[in-house]
């Protein structure tokens, strides 16, 4: 790919990002941060290429450390986002009518 096509993808993706992020509800801004954090670990692609390449062995070790760091983020980021999102619940509609709703979890 030449530089201009890459730049085009980048610029268009910035616009997509702009509109998609504004549509995120403010109540979910913390999960937004943790999930963007997880997906920015796609840098693991570069780390894997460096690890798997033959040639410079120092480059391989830098790559392997980067794979480990990015993996912390991938697993941690998606897991903590899933954990947070599981907490968001809607109001149980019948609950306000019955006075003793304490038993229902």
């Amino acid at each position, binding site marked *: *790919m030449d*530089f201009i096509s*890459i730049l085009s993808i*980048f610029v268009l*993706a*910035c616009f*997509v*990002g*702009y509109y*998609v*992020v504004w549509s*995120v*509800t*403010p109540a*979910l*801004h*913390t999960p*937004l*941060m*943790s*999930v*963007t*954090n*997880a*997906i*920015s*670990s*796609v840098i*693991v*692609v*570069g780390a*894997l*290429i*460096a690890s*798997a390449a*033959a*040639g*410079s062995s120092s*480059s391989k070790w830098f*790559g*392997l450390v*980067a*794979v*480990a*760091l*990015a*993996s*912390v*983020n991938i*697993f*941690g*980021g*998606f897991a*903590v*986002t*899933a954990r*947070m999102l599981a*907490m*968001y619940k*809607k109001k149980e509609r019948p609950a306000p009518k019955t006075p003793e709703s304490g038993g229902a979890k």
Partner: protein
Amino acid sequence: MEPAVAVNPWVAVAYLASGVLFILALRGLSSPATSRTGNRFGMIGMLIAVVTTLVTHFPMTQLALGPDQACFDNCSASPNWSLVGEIFVAIIIGGTIGFVTARKIQMTAMPQLVAAFHSLVGMAAVLVAIAAFLNPGAFGILGGDGNILTVSRIEMSLGAAIGAITFSGSVIAFAKLNGNMSGAPIILPARHVINLGTLAAILVLTGLFAASQHAGPGENNLFWVACALSFAIGFLLIIPIGGADMPVVVSMLNSYSGWAAAAMGFTLHNTAMIITGALVGSSGAILSYIMCRAMNRSFVSVIAGGFGAASSAGGEAKEQRPYKRGSAEDAAFLLKEAENVIIIPGYGMAVAQAQHVLREMADQLKAHGVNVKYAIHPVAGRMPGHMNVLLAEANVPYDEVFELEDINHEFAQCDVAFIIGANDVVNPAAKTDKSSPIYGMPVFDVEKAKTIMFIKRSMSGVGYSGVDNDVFYLDQTMMLLSDAKKMVEEINKALAD
């Protein structure tokens, strides 16, 4: 030499697919109902990216090639299983640490966790840039003259610089948020000169490196100097920023981690990385903007730092003004009689761990036929949306929780405004007192409510910004002076009787 990426058109399609899945992951967050599916899209996208990379760059043992050449289709080679093993060990070690941390972390500690995660992305970007610098052949960025391609040199220097700034900046943000370091700004003399000078030096070094005739693999120390300076500047940029501005800093570092990934995506010609970098970069930038707007601070003034250093001196020598003090029983009586109650939680509530008892109070009030809503200020927590997560954890339904602009007009019809652990966000000085440090910040119009209940530990402490609050002394205000959790527990007891 063949470029190392996109050997097969399907590979490019796979990376594009994972980029699109990441867009869908963010799109899902437009409502809590679709958010879980979105998160799953994100995971699938990541899986596709990782598997594609492993398949196309499967580790091979070189048999007939020189040390700097990568091997693709038509050279004799055999799979290097020990290297595959090492890669999986790295993934398993990192993955386990990440997963266990994500399970155990307390929701109040979310800002620190996110700052720590940002630092890892930053460090990973630096390491990948270093690896590309040492072994450009593997990334397909080695030119015919034995030098790294000029444009790639610029891209990887920028990637390394942004990554390094993200790393050291996030480490400081983590230390400040986690209490390993005081939240007070650390002001160096002539810091603006030092910072701008260092930034200029990084750019000049990058330019010289790009223009250099000696830029073979691992050659040319300008790259290392630029990296070292970038680590230093990340540190210098964040230490003068006070604890109150950390929500902006965390959002900003979120943005930086995205730009670092995008820069490395340019180096690797990888669509998934470029799309993701652009998404994350815009996301962090928008969140920083929202946080700045909520505090009525300009982005530049936050970055310049120093806020919260001198302002506490202002509100000290004030005479004691009369206020009304109420008991838990008084509060319970008024709450039970009310028709509409709006609860305004602040970070003090989370510190006191009062969110669960608060939800029990709301349940009791609802059982008495009271209409209960929660009002959240954008800076109520320590990061964007933090308070919403804390309430969700306490099983507060998200459709009872409202944002500032959606609920502010309702205070006129509200019988009780119940303020717990918040202060600056209900301070009318933000609307009236031009000399106040929080002037211009959007605040809740609690003074329009019939009764205001204000839970506060004592009358001596003032808010984060160090400003006195006129709401304490209003006729309709009842001060409930106690620990937030204890007070709400007592109200609950009184309500149950």
